[in-house]
């Protein structure tokens, strides 16, 4: 579903992503791990079409994100990091606007809006202004937006950052549910989350993929260490 080949991204002189390649088959939930500044967000932004890669290619469901951006973006539900929203709109207004942007007809829109409001527990706040919502609810609005057009691929950048433990647990449950229908790439810092929700991990460090495989494979390869130990060893931060 997601194919990335030799992706390179420069910010001026600085090379943020240095030849990342990976493949995510249909129906997989992939945990995208790496320390801060490793290039996770940059890679995801290239996939979602917000940034154009300096070289390399990426395909979503067969559509190249650089040469066929509109069709590729239709396949993706993307939730950016820290989830920016328009504070002056109400939740339903915002979702209606996003549905319009994604080209949904009104009948489809009504059906999908009911579905995402239900699925993301937004029913109680649907008339509220986005600006008055707590961080957890805002995150859910972002997730609802990603789900709106029922895309086959979900790309979620730190969906549980800044949530309280109850909300993290709820979100994780939701992600596991969604993983049964959608191919998913989710970045996170919480390793236990990956162990619970994902079936494959990709660890990225200094703009390069250092580990890629199913959870069992990776564990076996590293003599059954915990994911945390593997992560620390691979990203060279042992002893800090």
């Amino acid at each position, binding site marked *: 579903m997601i194919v990335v080949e030799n992706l390179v991204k420069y910010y001026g002189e600085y090379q943020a992503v240095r030849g990342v390649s990976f493949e995510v088959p249909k129906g997989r939930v992939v945990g995208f791990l790496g320390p801060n500044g490793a290039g996770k967000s940059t890679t995801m932004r290239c996939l979602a*079409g917000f940034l*154009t890669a300096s070289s390399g290619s990426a395909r979503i469901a067969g559509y190249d994100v650089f040469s066929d951006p509109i069709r590729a973006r239709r396949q993706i539900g993307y939730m950016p990091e820290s989830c920016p929203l*328009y504070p002056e709109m109400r939740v339903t207004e915002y979702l209606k606007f996003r549905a319009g942007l994604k080209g949904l007809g009104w009948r489809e829109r009504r059906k999908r809006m009911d579905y995402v409001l239900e699925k993301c527990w937004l029913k109680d706040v649907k008339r509220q202004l986005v600006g008055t919502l707590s961080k957890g609810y805002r995150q859910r609005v972002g997730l609802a937006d990603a789900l709106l057009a029922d895309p086959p691929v979900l790309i979620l950048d730190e969906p549980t950052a800044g949530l309280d433990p109850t909300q993290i647990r709820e979100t994780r449950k939701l992600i596991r549910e969604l993983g049964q229908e959608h191919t998913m790439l989710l970045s996170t810092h919480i390793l236990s989350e990956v162990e619970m929700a994902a079936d494959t991990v990709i660890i990225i460090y200094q703009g390069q993929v250092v580990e890629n495989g199913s959870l069992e494979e990776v564990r076996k390869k590293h003599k059954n260490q915990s994911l945390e130990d593997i992560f620390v060893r691979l990203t060279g931060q042992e002893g800090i």
Partner: protein
Amino acid sequence: MRPLFALIKREFTAYFLSPVAYVTLAVFLLVTGHLFYLVLTGLTKPGSSGIEYPMQALLGDEKFWLVFLFIPPLLTMRLLAEERGTGTLESLLTSPIRDWQVVAGKFIGACLFYFVLWLPTLLYVPILTDMTFPGWNPKTWSFGIDPYPVLTSYLGVLLAGGMFLGIGLFVSSLVKSQLVAAMISMVVSLVFVLAAFWRPDLDSGSLTYRLIYFISVPEHFRRDFSRGIIDSRHLILYGSITLFTLFLTVRSLESRRLRA
């Protein structure tokens, strides 16, 4: 086309969700209302000190353009600068919508609000043209004063406004702060207004005057639009600068993807 309409709708309604729109509307009405009062006083004054062209007194005046200078930047400053500042540009540019549609949607939204700004001034028109309504049939309506200067003035105002909005939109795509966007677009717009303030010091036959006449919007209104003349040079200037700034805005969005 559905994404474009959704964006136009959101941009237009967003004006009414912020105080900026109401403040702009109020200030604009205050200024045009005052000018209207001055014109009426001039028109009803007995003797030879009256007004030859009512629209000229309204729109050909430098004072009006000095206030007008602030209006389009206030309308355009948030369009892209705000989205860049708060990061919502990321969700906008990753939805299945082309860059030119993003720019067109924002521009059309701003233009619609600009039309709304002028809408209340239509109330002055029947009085300014000394209109009589004997009945509901438009054929029986008549004007005491030639109505065509009013039509050409509105045409000029809408097209010149489009040009200033285009400039503002482009500047807004370059910076992250709304305040900076507003100030820079005011300075750029000043180029098209300032020349009129030098007019009293210039020989109207000189080469300098003839050159600045090309880009001086208040002069276009004083000499042509408010007197019922449509000079194609002005329309071409407004149209080409609007299209050029919109093109630059699309390019500016594209380059944003390449850089960061």
